[in-house]
């Protein structure tokens, strides 16, 4: 293809602007990483650390509070995601059966919860009434299902030919077996997407931990980080450690190290996210 002069100029300009956009996206993330490995003297606005030190990570990973919070976060992500994927698939399967009596009414009642909610006060009272305050299960049950995930999975299931169900019935398989032996293996990318959305949601949650949990041993990592940054609980936890280690690092270095530790799992998951996320959403969200 031949470009005119104007188009050539535009292409250069376009690439230039997009490169700047890329830098703006990258800078905050790189900066926090650089701070986390710099000594007090070494942290400037630039991205090249003058003096590298890993003592922030040593201090942080040596503290019981952070390891506990990390464990709670990992546990809720693994347990929560597994249960949610199973229950979401069960729900989506039933709703994908076009002849299911009252299907439209049930769909409406489910989608309506996206538009209208009771809000924080009544929800708190329900959670309290169920005895979930200060219980690990408060991380699992209140966010068991997400309407968006149900919809993308349901839309995908609907594209599976109904003859598969019928042949399953003929072979004497129940709905449970049809779902787990036939439907889920046929829908791997979309199931993976649902699992990723759910896992990221669990990993990134902090609000439930702040509202429902008082026991410090049950706090999630995100809340631990929030208390460190926003509520400046910093000195309570780490000023001693810095003094004992007599390290030449600032409180910013420690905060940055915690931020990096919290982001790390997301970066590890990111290649999978890229692979499945967009594809899954596009596959599942085709309008009826």
């Amino acid at each position: 293809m031949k470009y005119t002069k104007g188009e050539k100029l535009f292409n250069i300009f376009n690439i230039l602007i997009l490169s700047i956009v890329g830098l703006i996206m990258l800078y905050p993330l790189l900066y926090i990483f650089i701070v986390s490995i710099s000594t007090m003297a070494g942290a400037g606005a630039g991205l090249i650390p003058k003096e590298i030190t890993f003592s922030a990570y040593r201090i942080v990973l040596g503290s019981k509070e952070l390891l506990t919070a990390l464990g709670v976060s990992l546990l809720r992500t693994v347990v929560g995601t597994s249960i949610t994927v199973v229950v979401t698939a069960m729900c989506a399967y039933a709703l994908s059966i076009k002849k299911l009596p009252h299907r439209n009414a049930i769909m409406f009642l489910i989608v309506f919860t996206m538009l209208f909610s009771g809000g924080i006060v009544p929800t708190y009272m329900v959670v309290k009434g169920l005895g979930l305050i200060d219980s690990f299960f408060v991380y699992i049950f209140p966010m068991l299902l997400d309407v968006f995930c149900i919809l993308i999975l349901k839309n995908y299931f609907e594209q599976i030919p109904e003859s598969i169900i019928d042949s399953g019935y003929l072979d004497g398989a129940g709905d449970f077996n049809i779902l787990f032996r036939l439907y889920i293996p046929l829908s791997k990318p979309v199931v993976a997407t649902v699992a990723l959305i759910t896992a990221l949601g669990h990993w990134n949650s902090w609000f439930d931990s702040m509202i429902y949990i008082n026991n410090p041993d049950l706090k999630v990592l995100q809340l631990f980080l929030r208390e460190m940054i926003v509520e400046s609980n910093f000195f309570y936890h780490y000023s001693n450690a810095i003094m004992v280690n007599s390290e030449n690092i600032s409180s910013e270095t420690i905060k940055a190290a915690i931020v990096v530790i919290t982001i790390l799992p997301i970066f590890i998951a990111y290649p999978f996210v890229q692979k499945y996320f967009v594809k899954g959403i596009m596959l599942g969200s085709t309008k009826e």
Partner: protein
Amino acid sequence: MNIKLFKKYRGAYLLLLPAILFFIIFSYIPMSGLVIAFKDFRLGLGIIGSPWCGLENFQVLFENANFIRVIRNTLVISFLKLFFVLVVPIILALMLNEVRLSAFKKGIQTLTFIPHFISWVILSGIFLMLFGIDGPLNKLIVSSGGDPIGFMTSDVWFITIIIATGVWQTAGYTAVIYLAAISGINPNLYDAASVDGANRWQQTWYITLKALQPTIIIMFILSVGGVLNSGFDQIFNMYNPQVYDVGDILGTWLIRRFEVLDFAGAAAGGLLQSVLGMFLVCLTNSLSKRFAGKESGLW
């Protein structure tokens, strides 16, 4: 219900049961719990035992000068965000679409997509440091001879940063959705247009943007739904009492009411938020159906 039909679909209903229980317990019971907004709630008496008080809780809300301020802030931040969060990704997607170097395109897409998956707790940790009084930005300003700026404590700067970081977080993700829609456009359309003498601007305007219209409308309706929420996570993690004048929004104010155990007040405010939010979504949906054709809109 027909017993025979029910028997036939017994298995399916059984699979649906956990979901039904979930939505009853965590959505519909809380909704009915909203009656607390019309009650003179006392902790000792519980929701059912507390006496009715009509609209008194709402009256108290509107007589509170802070509440009026909170409503104003919510609307200002929401509409600014609605505009920028809608427009920037469209421009980004169109620009990415013009890039012929696929490796470069993919790289930029990857970079802009990342922040969508990072929580506002982490992001606020990063931004509070970047824009802090002795953060890198202020170091740069000071070293070039200026005075440090209190980015997070000055009203105008705070709002600017909220909008800018909001765009920073969501633009890449939304752009990817637009790009997917663009890739579905029939390439023959462009060929036909260029035969007719349309230049690239005209092609972008008349073909690409036209084809994106339904997606844009859906994204718009979805973001209108979040208008009254206007990014609770973001603001709750980034604001501080010095910028309450412009930064305190409905969500953050309600959570502070909740923390001081003003349950009835928080529930009344929450009810207003939910009802208005639903009203706005329905309004936008019917408007878009009216002006952009029956096919557009969420339902």
